[in-house]
């Protein structure tokens, strides 16, 4: 039997007690927090937030497809002010309650510092605020507004395929990606993650542009643009016609892109796309990721993020990986 693996990672100057976070748009602190203790995760990544509230797309916003799902939620969010007033304090409170000395669940299964469960020396769960905008100024305004908050890192979604006015164009053009990254870089001192879209010919080109413009990390992949047609009703299944494909069906593409990007940039990568099990997560680390995010799996099974964390730890333990670094160099 091997020693308990060290699950902690260092990312953009911050210590994560383990390398698992939620994928933006698939986590709601109030609702997900009723199913599993999210203070066990290294970080939580929240839904994309814009300067003002966005109403999102009409329904149906969801369609199932073989091994995956399409969504066209359209980045509905209450705006950054409501996010700061309601979401961040709620998450903070939830985490603090569970980290209090003597607290029941504290640090259970976090590993990391080698201490026994229950003796809490591991860092707190970090908050990653995912931001969106329709133009450069909106991204900058949201980033600035988050400066004086408890958000630990910013993740810029330059890749959402749903909003016609913004999203897609930034993430599919290296020059625009660099421009918006530089603008947000100048507006925030917090570690900046740029989230990349897979809907491009060469993801490395966009990743390099983000790195050169000051990104501290990149996360990938966002959803792949797709559609479904209800043949009996003779109409597109989604009201928005097209939507973003996620879930197990996209894992091979996500892995390939993480692998390529890891060889093109020197900044850390948060890998995601179809992670359903701990072993799936291990594959992303082997491809070069430093952390992973769980999205669609959490819609299919609400406790997936912590289940996958436990499975990853088990996988590492039974296969002799002492830490995440060992996974990352496993391919040689």
């Amino acid at each position, binding site marked *: 039997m091997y020693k308990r693996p060290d699950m902690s990672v260092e990312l953009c100057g911050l210590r994560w007690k383990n390398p698992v976070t939620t994928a933006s748009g698939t986590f709601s602190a109030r609702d997900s927090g009723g199913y599993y203790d999210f203070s066990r995760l290294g970080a939580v990544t929240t839904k994309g937030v814009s300067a003002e509230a966005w109403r999102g797309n*009409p329904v149906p916003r969801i369609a199932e497809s073989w091994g*995956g799902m399409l969504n066209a939620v359209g980045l509905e969010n209450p705006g950054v002010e409501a996010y700061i007033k309601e979401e961040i304090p709620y998450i903070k409170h939830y985490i603090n309650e569970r980290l209090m000395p003597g607290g029941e669940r504290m640090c259970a299964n976090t590993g990391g510092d080698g201490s026994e469960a229950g003796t809490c020396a591991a860092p707190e769960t970090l908050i990653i605020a995912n931001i969106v905008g329709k133009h450069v100024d909106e991204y900058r305004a949201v980033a600035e507004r988050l400066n004086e908050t408890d958000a630990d890192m910013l993740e810029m979604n330059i890749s959402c395929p749903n909003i016609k006015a913004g999203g897609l164009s930034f993430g599919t053009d290296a020059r625009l990606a660099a421009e918006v990254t530089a603008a947000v870089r100048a507006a925030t001192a917090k570690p900046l993650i740029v989230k990349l879209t897979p809907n491009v010919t060469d993801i490395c080109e966009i990743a390099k542009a983000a790195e050169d413009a000051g990104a501290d990390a990149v996360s990938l992949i966002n959803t792949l643009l797709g559609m479904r047609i209800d043949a009996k009703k003779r109409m597109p299944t989604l009201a928005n016609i097209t939507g973003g494909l996620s879930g197990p069906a996209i894992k091979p593409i996500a892995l390939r892109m993480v692998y390529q990007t890891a060889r093109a940039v020197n900044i850390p990568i948060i890998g995601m796309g179809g992670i359903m099990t701990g072993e799936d997560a291990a594959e992303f680390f082997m491809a070069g990721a430093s952390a992973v995010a769980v999205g669609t799996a959490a*819609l299919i099974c*609400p406790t997936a993020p912590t289940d996958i964390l436990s499975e990853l730890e088990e996988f590492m333990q039974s296969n002799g990986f002492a830490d995440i670094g060992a996974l990352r160099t496993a391919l040689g």
Partner: protein
Amino acid sequence: MKNGIVEAVIASNRRIAEDVLRMELIYKDAALAAPGQFINIYLREKNLLLPRPISVCDAADGALTLVYGVVGAGTRAMADYAPGSVLRVGAPCGNGFNVSDARGFGRVTLIGGGIGVPPLLMLAKALKTETDASVRAVLGFKSETFLADEFRTCCDETLIATEDGSEGFHGNVLELLKEENLNPGGDYFYSCGPLMMLRALSRFAGGQGIPLQVSLEARMGCGYGACKACICVVGSRQSEGLAAETATVNKRICVDGPVFFGNEVIWDV
């Protein structure tokens, strides 16, 4: 954690009408379910990823009744699940019907359409025990009826409408309601059924000043509040001074609903 997925055992799963099945689950927390709530069914088929929401039709100590229509791959798969086998289900979800709001009314009319009929059964039983109102069920079907006898057992009056006239009133529930001798004027309404029916009913009830609660549905992703797939638009028609954008808000049917007041739903979006 307060919510979780549990393994329920299928006690029975049998056909009660064409493409309609009744499933009895042995489910330890059944007594916690309230009328109008639903449960997420996690299918066994690995290719059918998303949970299927099905309303609680009835609940007793340790047993839950679901009645579902076979409309696609997921419900077709469910129809083949054998008694004795295990089914993964979520805890009862959502804000169900507000029963106490009908207190003080002499009569409550429940209006169900097709596969929207089942959740009204548990509601009828709750209304009988928790209010003094007489309970009338007005149930509409395409042709073959189901659950009608259960309603007859617990309601003071049960009226059937079929689109093909094979049983009861020939026509839809709204046409039946408008029949003079039904006098729904001073009633309290609860309804579940197709969107078109709910919209028309809401207009009818609004015109007569009849309070109405409706159970809505939308394609769901997670079924527990995390993905914002399942929204409806609610607002107040009174707030005319406000811009349309601020006078209405999106609500998630899975956690804020599925039951809403008819006059707060914005039907034509």
